[in-house]
């Protein structure tokens, strides 16, 4: 050990110095990141930027003089929660939106915004106002439905224009939620739903009654047809036949019927034989 030290002292010192120098100057750029190299406060070059020449990997910098700023390369999100937006028919709506953006010009970003959070804080009010402006031109119903595709495209374009100043590119703006504000708007919506249902229930019940009456009437008509078809074959006989049934119903003793007394005249047809005439 001591021999090694005495014999190769300078070589060892040199190796150690080189190693330290290497560790101080080398840096690894990950695939997920992009890097801006800042020399005495001045951004001088970038690594692994979208569309740039250099890829992620091992790079060198001048130690002490140059510092490295690591910036996310992947798509980031910018959220806007629970903003009240007024439609052009004066209805209020709570909107949650998000924008997806990506840093495409890290040098500009470092100069103008500093960090990605700086970009976020810069873009947030812009997203907010762009969304308000765009949705405010539409009616409440249009805000909900298909038209929001074009509205969001406009918002994205506006936001993108602003974002470029901070070295960012806006990929997409989406409305995550559209809600009615709690309190009166929500309550009136509930009331409307309720009255809607009441109307529906009433209609359904009425339809049921109507159908029932029709079914009954049809049955009555059908019965009448059946009677007519059968009895119409001989009206005189039917008269007789039905009269017999009727007498039996009217005069015969039975449950719930009054007692009957019959006074017969001797001329009665029934007593024809009784008199012994002929």
């Amino acid at each position, binding site marked *: 050990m001591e021999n090694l030290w005495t014999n190769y002292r300078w070589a060892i010192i040199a190796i150690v110095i080189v190693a330290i120098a290497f560790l101080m100057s080398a840096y690894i750029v990950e695939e997920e990141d992009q890097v801006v190299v800042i020399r005495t406060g001045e951004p001088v070059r970038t690594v692994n930027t979208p569309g740039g020449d250099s890829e992620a990997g091992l790079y060198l910098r001048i130690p002490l003089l140059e510092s490295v700023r690591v910036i996310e390369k992947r798509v980031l999100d910018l959220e806007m929660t629970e903003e009240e937006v007024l439609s052009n028919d004066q209805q209020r709506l709570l909107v949650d939106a998000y924008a997806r953006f990506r840093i495409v010009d890290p040098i500009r970003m470092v100069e103008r915004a500093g960090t990605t959070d700086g970009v976020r804080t810069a873009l947030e009010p812009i997203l907010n106002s762009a969304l308000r402006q765009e949705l405010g031109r539409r009616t409440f119903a249009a805000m909900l439905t298909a038209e929001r595709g074009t509205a969001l495209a406009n918002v994205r374009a506006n936001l993108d224009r602003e974002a470029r100043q901070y070295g960012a590119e806006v990929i997409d703006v*989406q409305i995550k939620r559209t809600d009615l504000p709690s309190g009166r708007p929500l309550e009136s919506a509930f009331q409307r739903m309720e009255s809607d249902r009441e109307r529906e229930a009433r209609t359904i019940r009425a339809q049921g009654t109507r159908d029932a009456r029709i079914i009954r009437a049809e049955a009555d008509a059908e019965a009448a047809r059946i009677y007519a078809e059968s009895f119409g074959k001989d009206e005189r006989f039917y008269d007789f036949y039905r009269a017999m049934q009727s007498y039996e119903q009217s005069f015969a003793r039975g449950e719930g019927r009054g007692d009957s007394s019959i006074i017969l005249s001797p001329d009665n047809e029934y007593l024809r034989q009784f008199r012994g005439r002929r």
Partner: protein
Amino acid sequence: MQIFDRLRERFAMAGQGLAMAGKKNPWGSSGNKGGGSGGGDGATPPSGDGDKPEGPRNPWLPGGSSGDGQKRGGRRSASIEDIFKNRGPEGPRRGGGGGSGFRLPERPGGKSWVPIVIVSIGILFLILSSMHLVEPREKAVVKTLGNYSRTLDSGLHFTLPFPLETVDIEDVEGVRAVNIPGSGERAKLILTGDQNLVDLSYIVRWRIADLPDFKFQLAEPIETVNEVAEAAMRASVAEKTLDETFTGAGRAEIQQRVRERMQETLDAYRAGITVVGVEIEKADPPGDVVDAFRDVSVAEQDADRARNQARGYAQQTIAGAEGEAEAFDKVYEQYRLAPEVTRQRLYYETMERVLAQTDKTIVEADGVTPYLPLPELRRRANQSAEITARPQQNTQGQ
């Protein structure tokens, strides 16, 4: 270094205990045995232990300062060189305590073990960090000095060791499911196209389609899936009316649309994610108006009941009519065969039945209108009924 020292102490204690029990030290050579147990342990182990000023042995303390150390013949502070050098021809320097019990077997040439240990640890580390077992459902991305270089399929793979290449293994076959709203989250009401609210909960199932994209395109892929799902769901529900969200067909359409929308958006982000499916678990009216919705279904049942009752009436009526008509037809058939006789027979039979059950009075004289004591007759009839009833009651009473 201190760790080695401590380890050595432990082994030393174990060795001492074993020596006291009269057994061979498992690590020691025969020479060691002579030094360790022969010296004084056999004679005065209790006094040796009792001499110690402090209770538990402190492995971090320099040996020389404590009485224990003095007794051991001036044990020096922890130096790994010492520990490993304290053997060989001159024998263990430590007389008592059996401290020299632990010793690696001699290495030919009398060289140090240190480099060998360090090198073998290094080799082990290199092997472990360069050998990667990727399971069948998994894939892995390899970054060479931070730069994405390749994707590994399942199987055993070798890469350059750690600082040069890093490997990130991810389950790519497994379908992940997200419940929205998540457990514990309060229900979120979604606006339908007709400006009603619906309480929806659904499951989004997705999996990784392209691992490098999944790793390197989105900063928060999982978060993104959730947000994209919510945006797509709200946009799709806004295209439908409230009633459509409750029906099976409407739901199926919504699910389909949400899936398409999500896929479109995620593809635009190059997220490397495939949306496997979207399932609406529950589509309910909001809690505040649920009574009104229940009333609608009650109304439907009411209407159905009314219809059913009417149908029952209809069947009864028609069956009655058919029966009556059929009866008439039968009689009429017979009547046609012998009209006069049948007519007479029917007449007499009916009169019989009618007159048999009624009171009859026949008025003979012409032009005379006799007083008809109809009420009287009736009373008499009732009385006779009572009279006949009474004796029965009496007999019952007696």
